[in-house]
C-alpha cells in the first residue's frame, strides 16, 4: 500500500513538472504564433533565415514549466543557457556583429555612382520620427517611444540595439514587430507605391549608373567612419562595424576576414539573435495591450517610411532636369529592408515597363536606408539614453 502511495506521489510530482500541468492559455497562444512564423517561413519563404529561428525561439520560450522548481531553463532565469545567450541581445553585442557581416556583403557602388539617391534614404527615416511622435501621443514614455519609432527604420539589428538601450522591457515586441513587417514588405509597400505614383512616373527610365573605381570603394567606408565618428558618435557601434565590414570587402587584401564576416559569423549571430529574441517573448511578458500598440505603431511607421520615400522622390523630381529624373518607384527602397524593398521596386517597375530594370538604382537608397536608420538610432540614443 505504501509503495502504491509513494508511486502516486512521485507521479503527481512528475505531472507537476510537465508542461501539461503548467500550461495556460497565454502559452498556447504564443506557441500558435511561433508555429505560424515557422509555417510562413517554410511555405511562403518570408524571411526564412529570421522567421525560423524566431519562431522556434517562441516555442522554446513558451514551453510551460514549473517556474518555482528552479529548473534554470527560462530565458529570464539568471545563469540558464538561454539567459547567457540572451546577454548578446540585452547588452547589444549581436547587432554590431550583424552590421559587420552586412558591411562585408554590401556593395555601395549604386550609391557612389548616383549619390543623390542617398537623400531618399534620409527621407524614409520620417517613418522613425513619425512613429516616435505617434507612440508618445499614445501614452508611451519618451524612451519607449524612441524604441518603438525605430521599427520604422525596417532594420532588425538597429531596432534591437536601440531598444536594448532605451526600453529593454519592450525588446520582444519591438523585435518581433520589426522582423514581421520586414518579412511583409512585399505585402505592405506595393499598394502605397501604386497609390502615390502616376502611370507616367512609373515608366521613367533612369540613366545607367557610371562605373565606380576601386579607390572610391575603398575610401568610402573610411570616410563614412570618420564622418560618423565626428557627427553622430552614438551611431558608431553600428555604423563603425558596417564600414569596417565594408572595408574588409573592398580592400581586396582581407578576403578571408570578409568571407568570415559575411558568412559563418553573421550566420552564427543570426541564429543566436533570432532564437533568443523569439524566446524572450514569454506569454507573461509579451501578451499585453502594450505589445498590440507596438504592433499597430510599427505598421504605421512602415507605411509612413514608404510614403515619405516616394513623395520625396516626386518632390525632388520637380527640381531635377528631365534626363536626370528619378523613378519614384525606388522611393520605397529608402527603408532599409535590404534587398527586399529594392526587389519590390524592380517587380513593380517591370509590371509597367518590361524593359525598365530598377534594381540597380533601388539598391542605392536601400543601402542609404541602412546608414540612415543607424544614424536615426544614434540620434535617438543621444537624446533619450
Amino acid at each position: 500500500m505504501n509503495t502504491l502511495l509513494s508511486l502516486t506521489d512521485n507521479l503527481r510530482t512528475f505531472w507537476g513538472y510537465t508542461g501539461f500541468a503548467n500550461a495556460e492559455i497565454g502559452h498556447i497562444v504564443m506557441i500558435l504564433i511561433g508555429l505560424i512564423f515557422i509555417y510562413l517561413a517554410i511555405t511562403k519563404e518570408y524571411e526564412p533565415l529570421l522567421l525560423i529561428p524566431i519562431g522556434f525561439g517562441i516555442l522554446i520560450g513558451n514551453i510551460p514549466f514549473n517556474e518555482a522548481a528552479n529548473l534554470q531553463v527560462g530565458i529570464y532565469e539568471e545563469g540558464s543557457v538561454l539567459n547567457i545567450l540572451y546577454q548578446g541581445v540585452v547588452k547589444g553585442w549581436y547587432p554590431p556583429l550583424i552590421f559587420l557581416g552586412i558591411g562585408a556583403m554590401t556593395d555601395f557602388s549604386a550609391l557612389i555612382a548616383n549619390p543623390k539617391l542617398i537623400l531618399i534614404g534620409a527621407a524614409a527615416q520620417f517613418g522613425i520620427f513619425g512613429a516616435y511622435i505617434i507612440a508618445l501621443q499614445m501614452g508611451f514614455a519618451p524612451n519607449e517611444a524612441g524604441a518603438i519609432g525605430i521599427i520604422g527604420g525596417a532594420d532588425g539589428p538597429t531596432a534591437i540595439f536601440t531598444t536594448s538601450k532605451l526600453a529593454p522591457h519592450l525588446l520582444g515586441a519591438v523585435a518581433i514587430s520589426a522582423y514581421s513587417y520586414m518579412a511583409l514588405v512585399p505585402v505592405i509597400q506595393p499598394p502605397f507605391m501604386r497609390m502615390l505614383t502616376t502611370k507616367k512616373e512609373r515608366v521613367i527610365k533612369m540613366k545607367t549608373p557610371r562605373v565606380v573605381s576601386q579607390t572610391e570603394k575603398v575610401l568610402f567606408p573610411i570616410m563614412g567612419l570618420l564622418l560618423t565618428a565626428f557627427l553622430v558618435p552614438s551611431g558608431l557601434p553600428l555604423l563603425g562595424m558596417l564600414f569596417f565590414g565594408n572595408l574588409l570587402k573592398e580592400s581586396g587584401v582581407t578576403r578571408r576576414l570578409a568571407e568570415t564576416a559575411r558568412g559563418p559569423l553573421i550566420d552564427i549571430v543570426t541564429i543566436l539573435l533570432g532564437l533568443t529574441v523569439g524566446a524572450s517573448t514569454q506569454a507573461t511578458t509579451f501578451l499585453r495591450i502594450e505589445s498590440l500598440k507596438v504592433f499597430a505603431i510599427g505598421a504605421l511607421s512602415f507605411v509612413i517610411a514608404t510614403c515619405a520615400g516616394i513623395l520625396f522622390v516626386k518632390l525632388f523630381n520637380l527640381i531635377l532636369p528631365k534626363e536626370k529624373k528619378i523613378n519614384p518607384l525606388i522611393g520605397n527602397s529608402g527603408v532599409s529592408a535590404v534587398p527586399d524593398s529594392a526587389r519590390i521596386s524592380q517587380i513593380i517597375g517591370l509590371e509597367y515597363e518590361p524593359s525598365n530594370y530598377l534594381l540597380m538604382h533601388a539598391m542605392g537608397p536601400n543601402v542609404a536606408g541602412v546608414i540612415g536608420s543607424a544614424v536615426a538610432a544614434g540620434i535617438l540614443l543621444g537624446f533619450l539614453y
Partner: protein
Amino acid sequence: MTSTIQTTLFIATIGIVGIFIFMSFFYLIILALDKYLPYQEEKPTEEFMEEISESEE
C-alpha cells in the same frame, strides 16, 4: 502646447534635420571622390607591360 509635445517635436525635427545633414555630407564626400579620383579604365596586364617596355626603349 504642452512641454511633452514641444520636446517631441524638437527631437523629431532635430532628428530628421540631423539625418539630412549627415547624408548631405556623405553626398559631398562622394562628389569629391568622383571629382578627384575618377574612374579610369584598367588596362590588361599585357598592354601595360608593352607600354613599359616601349618607354624603356
